[in-house]
């Protein structure tokens, strides 16, 4: 660390008072924590909703106490109605995809650590950053408010396919006010994430410390940077799509509604719209969104794994190149959601090939992780366990993608539980394992307290085994042509699958309950955990050169000078250490790790 005068254009004074410090804060670290808290509230809500769904799917006639609370129409005698099931399903998915999988790995960790890891004092536009969080919170409140208005939230699923989502209340419960609130919420959410991207990109490009070249940036910085670029284009398409959807509801336009539709025995007064237009716009966002959820996880796992393998990954450039390739290809694959949608069947083949090809960079990253474990000095702790769990889940979920990438096979697997199993493993569970790895790794830095490692390991074991017990059987159900988004299984050929659903339900309840160990751990440790040292994991990147938790201006008025790449592990470092910090004086250690 070198004493350097702080750049006056970036410096903002220490926050004064509770409100400026913790509520309307412009400090990227506080904003990161706010996003994390929002993610926690959303994930607990989403998980409780999934429990209700699972109990209902396992035991359709079971009375679930309190379930009537979720809509004004209620659930007579605690018995779930078909529409309530779909409404809960829609809210579960929307909360999880937008307010957990986008918010936690990208907005929460990215806000907290991106500026620190590049050696900056804050983001370039702190007020816009603050706005990004508060706008996202408004989006969350608007979404949740739909539980309490009209006839409840929309039942159209998180994909909100038109015209179900566009023709209004005639299409069913929640399709009036609830559907409009959904579209308003998502449009606002897009604004929040666009504002976030507008900060992440210049932070990476312009605010890097001296010596922090692109090739010295931690994997996480690259991951958040790439995610920002994806977010900038993806959310910029979803937002206007949502605005058009709102207009179809409130202004009588017909963007997504074709002529001569008869809903509920009434001729719909719309004409000339295109049903498939919504699907194209939605999936142009929706597929990059999958990578928005998972690329930060890839970065976190690469970062956590390097530290705990005590060696750099086999090739920095190959990992970064693969992430960039995935991001680039993510725009060319979205049509694989639409193979049987009525789109031109030639297009299906055109979308199939990039979808198959995107597995090459993904495979390369997995092989680099695997090959880097070879002859390493792998340390086992909660963070590395979740990183290893991520790899296992990513392999399982990624490989099942090979089925869905083929239009021929999609004829049988489209809209079945196979899809549910696939995307949960690869973008939900894997991404959440990335979030957990990040939490166990960075919590000491964020809060200045260590998490309880013993509880962390128990949490890992229950979650790892539990997640496989939930999501692997989904694939078997899909092979048996069990259609998703059904509130009950009344088809003759699916009746024998109900025991599998019951097994999944029990696994889901148990695995969900195990998450309370994690909640207890973070809440208890936040206040009563062992004080964290500056660098508990013997890591090299800049966040470990400053106190835990960091001061408001990160580097205490100094500007770090970076002299080494981010992963100098397995070297003969100073003081008998096996690593060299990024800001250690030059020439202190060989650049290449010692090898046998």
């Amino acid at each position: 660390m070198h004493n350097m005068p702080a750049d006056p254009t970036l410096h903002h004074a220490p926050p004064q008072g509770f409100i400026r410090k913790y509520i309307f804060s412009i400090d990227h670290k506080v904003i990161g924590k706010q996003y994390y808290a929002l993610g926690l509230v959303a994930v607990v809500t989403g998980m409780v909703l999934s429990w209700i769904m699972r109990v209902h799917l396992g035991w359709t006639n079971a009375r679930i106490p309190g379930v009537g609370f979720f809509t004004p129409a209620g659930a007579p005698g605690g018995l779930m109605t078909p529409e309530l099931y779909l409404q809960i399903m829609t809210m579960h998915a929307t909360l999880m995809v937008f307010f957990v999988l986008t918010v936690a790995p990208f907005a929460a960790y990215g806000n907290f650590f991106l500026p620190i890891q590049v050696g900056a004092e804050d983001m370039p536009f702190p007020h816009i950053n603050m706005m990004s969080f508060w706008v996202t919170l408004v989006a969350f409140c608007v979404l949740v408010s739909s539980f309490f208005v009209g006839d409840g939230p929309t039942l159209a699923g998180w994909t909100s396919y038109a015209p179900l989502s566009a023709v209004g209340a005639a299409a069913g419960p929640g399709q009036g006010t609830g559907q409009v609130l959904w579209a308003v919420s998502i449009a606002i959410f897009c604004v929040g994430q666009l504002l976030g991207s507008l900060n992440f990109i210049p932070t990476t490009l312009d605010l890097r410390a001296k010596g922090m070249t692109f090739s010295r940036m931690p994997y996480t910085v690259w991951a958040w940077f790439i995610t920002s670029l994806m977010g900038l284009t993806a959310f910029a398409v979803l937002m206007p799509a949502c605005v058009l959807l709102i207009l179809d509801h409130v202004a009588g336009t017909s963007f997504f509604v074709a002529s001569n539709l008869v809903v509920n025995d009434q001729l719909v007064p719309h004409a000339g719209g295109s049903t498939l237009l919504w699907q194209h716009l939605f999936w142009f966002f929706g597929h990059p969104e999958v990578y928005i959820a998972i690329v930060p996880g890839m970065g976190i796992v690469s970062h956590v794994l390097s530290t705990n393998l005590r060696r750099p990954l086999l090739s920095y450039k190959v990992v970064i190149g693969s992430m960039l390739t995935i991001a680039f290809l993510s725009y060319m694959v979205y049509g694989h959601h639409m193979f049987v949608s009525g789109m031109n069947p030639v297009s299906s083949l055109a979308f199939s090939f990039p979808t198959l090809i995107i597995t090459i960079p993904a495979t390369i990253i997995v092989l680099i992780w695997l090959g880097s474990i070879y002859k390493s000095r792998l340390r086992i702790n909660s963070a590395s366990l979740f990183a290893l769990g991520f790899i296992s889940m990513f392999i399982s979920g990624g490989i099942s993608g090979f089925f869905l990438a083929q239009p021929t096979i999609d004829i049988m697997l489209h809209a079945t539980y196979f899809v549910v199993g696939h995307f949960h493993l690869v973008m939900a569970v894997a991404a959440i394992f990335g979030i957990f790895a990040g939490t166990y790794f960075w919590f000491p830095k964020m809060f200045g307290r260590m998490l309880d490692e013993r509880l962390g390991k128990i949490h890992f074991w229950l979650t790892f085994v539990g997640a496989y017990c939930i999501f692997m059987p989904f694939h078997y159900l899909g092979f048996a042509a069990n259609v998703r988004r059904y509130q009950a299984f009344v088809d003759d050929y699916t009746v024998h699958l109900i025991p599998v659903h019951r097994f999944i339900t029990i696994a889901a309840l148990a695995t969900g309950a195990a998450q309370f160990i994690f909640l207890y751990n973070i809440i208890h440790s936040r206040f009563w955990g062992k004080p964290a040292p500056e660098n508990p994991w013997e890591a090299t990147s800049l966040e470990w050169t400053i106190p835990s938790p960091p001061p408001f201006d990160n580097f205490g008025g100094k500007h770090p000078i970076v002299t080494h790449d981010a992963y100098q592990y397995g070297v003969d470092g100073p003081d008998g250490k096996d690593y060299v910090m990024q800001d250690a004086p030059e020439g202190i250690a060989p650049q290449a790790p010692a090898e046998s």
Partner: protein
Amino acid sequence: MAKLLAVTIIIIAIGSAIPIVGHYWEAPANVSTHGHLIDDQMSDTMVETGICFLVSQIILAVFIWKYANRGREHRIGRLPGGALGLVILAFLVVGSEVIALGVLGTHAWAEVYFKPPGPNAMPVQVQAGQFAFYFRYPGPDGVFGPIHPDMISEATENFFGLDTTHDAASKDDIVTAEMDIPINREIHLLMHSKDLGHSFFVPAMRIQQDFVPGLDLSLHFTADKIGRYEIVCTQLCGLGHYNMKAYLSVLSPDDFDKWLKQEAALQ
């Protein structure tokens, strides 16, 4: 703990494969002439991806077992071949899978979607709506009467909006709630939705196609086994989505003719 994790990963990997190898839960057996192409493609994919899944999970487990908790006395080693070797491996393995499955698999897709129906294919129209399918046969004149959306009514049971008073072609049209077809005769299914997005999925027939409001779509297939099969909706269409179903009966040609006459008499 590392060794326990390694063993757990191997148990999960092998345990996950057991229900698939043991054929515990499978889709209804194929009854269409093109279905074996899809089934073969599925089996080939299963074998190739199954091997990749097991090998990669086992390598992960073995490496965790061998290299966890090693002290400073062990030098860090480099995988023979390094990153370049892995990149080449990925291109070779995944690339060959892409070619094997992606390119060859287009054959089955083309069979279903690129080949037009034969001249003798029997036309059947299906209309989807919340939450039922209705079918229409053109009758002796071989022509479907025009649809008048403003006349569509569940209340009057004019499901297709036919004007039998003014449209001659509509007079002999046969509207049914079940789809019956003759065995070994190609069916040209003409699909449209009256209201929202729906889908036409017959697992046993190996066909699935969405209905797109505003678009007329079609499918063609031939059933080669007599029996009664379920048609289900796979596109979320509202609260009754789970219960939107119909039956497809494959009959002998004689039985089919008999059934069609009975249905015509009921119109």
